[in-house]
């Protein structure tokens, strides 16, 4: 009992520090199939309970159970196999890019190990013309959209394959035709922009959906508030995704006000929100299908809290063992997204260990082939080969006189 009557500053601490054993009991969980599936035009106030539960379909045996499974319906096995392959490709791409960083071939990268189901599952539910507003950790959306990865690596290696000609920090690529908005390193700015984009869709009489993406850390930014405010006031077709992977570099979610489930934040704005197991591929597809349909049919915006765990380091210049237990990732109660989907596919007789090993080999061969091609155009070890004149081009639509003079003096 603290001394009554004396205010003390409360500084939240994570459940476990290095050397302690991992604990996750502070995270509200639900058994698979336990959470109901409301109609897509449900009144936002009625979605309040979902913020304290967790939508899950795959049970511990890998079987699909519960009302959300029924809502999803049976999914063609090829779609699931495609999802599994996309997740494996994303994970191996991350591994290769981290290795390339250690070799000096690239200078910056952020892996999304453990979170692949959210992006690879969500992308399956989007339609052509929809637009993702990603952060630097949603490369799974790009892999799942079929984007030519040698161009992605071109930006990493700073060579002439790079579609943005060396102008942005890797991995912040831009791919409008693949529904992948140009990434900004300034946190949360894209979140309110996604709502504006959705408003434009509504104003133009289209039914295109905007999918905003943000991490639990950046959800503390002012732009997060602006996004939810505009989403609730103007009810545009926007799905606001909040990936709660427990860590923002070295700050656990409690520092961002995560002692209350993040999905609750929608309640203050009268926005609908649901909370979903991010490592359950089927739950991801179901929740995405539900939210995108709600938005596309004009029932207003939705906030989805995807609960998962950042298994990798924040980026190439971070070592998590300094601030959290080494084995915390392995102890994550909701398991690994690839393993759980593999287990489910095997359970329904659509997959096997041999086919999995075969697929892993094919994925690695494909990524290594693309990396060799990309590296043949040069890497950052030589200082990169992006054209120097790109510095002066596309600052404005037409190059003004003062920039032309600066270029003449530079001689490039």
């Amino acid at each position, binding site marked *: 009992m603290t001394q009554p009557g004396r205010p003390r500053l409360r500084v939240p601490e994570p459940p476990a520090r290095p050397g302690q054993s991992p604990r996750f009991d502070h995270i509200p969980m639900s058994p698979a199939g336990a959470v109901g599936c409301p109609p897509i035009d449900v009144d936002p106030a009625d979605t309040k309970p979902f913020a304290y539960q967790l939508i899950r379909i795959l049970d511990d045996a890998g079987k699909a159970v519960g009302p959300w499974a029924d809502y999803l319906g049976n999914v063609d096995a090829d779609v699931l196999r495609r999802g599994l392959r996309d997740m494996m490709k994303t994970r191996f791409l991350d591994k290769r890019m981290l290795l390339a960083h250690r070799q000096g071939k690239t200078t910056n990268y952020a892996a999304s190990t453990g979170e692949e189901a959210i992006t690879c599952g969500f992308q399956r539910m989007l339609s052509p013309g929809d637009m993702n507003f990603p952060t630097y950790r949603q490369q799974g959306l790009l892999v799942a959209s079929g984007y030519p990865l040698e161009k992605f690596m071109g930006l990493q290696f700073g060579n002439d394959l790079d579609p943005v000609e060396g102008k942005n920090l890797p991995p912040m690529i831009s791919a409008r035709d693949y529904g992948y*908005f140009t990434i900004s390193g300034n946190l949360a700015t894209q979140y*309110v922009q996604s709502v504006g984009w959705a408003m434009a869709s509504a104003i133009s009489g289209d039914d295109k959906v905007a999918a905003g993406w943000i991490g639990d850390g950046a959800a503390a930014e002012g732009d997060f508030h602006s996004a939810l*405010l505009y989403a609730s006031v103007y009810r545009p077709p926007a799905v606001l995704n909040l990936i709660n992977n427990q860590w923002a570099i070295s700050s656990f979610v409690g520092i961002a006000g995560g002692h209350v489930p993040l999905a609750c934040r929608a309640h203050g704005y009268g926005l609908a929100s649901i909370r979903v197991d991010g490592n359950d591929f089927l739950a991801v597809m179901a929740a995405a299908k539900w939210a995108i349909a709600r938005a596309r049919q004009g029932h207003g915006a939705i906030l989805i809290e995807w609960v998962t765990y950042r298994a990798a380091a924040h980026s190439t210049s971070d070592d998590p063992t300094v601030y959290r237990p080494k084995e915390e990732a392995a102890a994550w109660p909701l398991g690994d997204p690839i393993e759980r989907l593999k287990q489910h596919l095997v359970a329904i007789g659509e997959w096997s260990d041999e086919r999995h090993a075969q697929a892993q080999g094919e994925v690695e061969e494909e990524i290594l082939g693309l990396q060799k091609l990309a590296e043949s155009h040069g890497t950052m070890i030589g200082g990169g080969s992006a054209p120097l004149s790109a510095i002066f081009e596309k600052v404005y639509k037409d190059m003004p006189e003062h920039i032309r003079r600066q270029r003449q003096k530079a001689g490039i």
Partner: protein
Amino acid sequence: MARMTMIEAIRDAMDVKMTQDKRVVVFGEDVGYFGGVFRCTQGLQAKHGKERCFDAPINEGGIVGAAIGMATYGLRPCVEIQFADYVFPAYDQITQEAARMRFRSNGDFTCPLVIRMPTGGGIFGGQCHSQSPEACFTHVAGLKVVIPSNPYDAKGLLISAIEDDDPVIFLEPKRLYNGPFDGHHERKIVPWSQHEFGEVPEGHYNVPLGKAVVRRPGADVTVLAYGTMVHVALAAAQETGIDAEVIDIRTLLPLDLETIEASVAKTGRCVIVHEATQTSGFGAELMAVVQEACFYHLEAPMIRVAGYDAPYPYAQEWAYFPGPDRVGRALREVMEG
């Protein structure tokens, strides 16, 4: 030819573009039903519908952030920040996002956006309704910064800004909204209807961005000014009898280098006038540009007449506001050199 105040000219510009181009949308605080605290958007919602002219929550970061999303979608938003003094919560979105959208995506996404804001002093607005923040934007590559000094230019420049494919910061000197002002606050206000530049053609016309204009040709000294200071400079030239060539810069970024350099090369002397505070003001950039191009033509050191380096005061308005006497003294001083 119709006669308009600057407010009516600005409203007319938005009305013409909203009628011509369905992609043009207008939103901001109190701009919808009410028509704007300075009445700049009066009647637009009634004419063009709630989906293209609507009020926004008091959240400038959201106004500009949402507008950027719309611009990348393909619309051409023209949003209002109620006072230039309130633009800073949106400074992150303007400088880190709008200004860089085309460059960082290498042309994949562009941001054809206009952000209008009433600017400048002379109305006893104190420190929160009188600031001139142009230098905060002219330092950002990728933005265009425009400031009209009369209704004719206001309409032509705003139409060009809405049609421009790059983000444009459109500063409107609120002191000039209803009539020209040359700093003589003791005199009766002359409405735009009795001024040559109050004549504003109906319908669509452009005043090009990136072009300055010589308001008053002269041989002895070049005065670089913009916004309200153009009228103050004209008054100072007239009262001192000095044959000053007064240039209204209109577009601060990108700057019309040819017109400025040609004038100073001719006169050999230069006075720069702006309301904003002097240190690191846009006048410093103008001085650098003139020095680089016209050093061997200069007969005397250049002089800046600008706001004192202090937050904009309230009661001491007329001691602070750069008036014709201060500009006149500068003209005499530069002639002596």
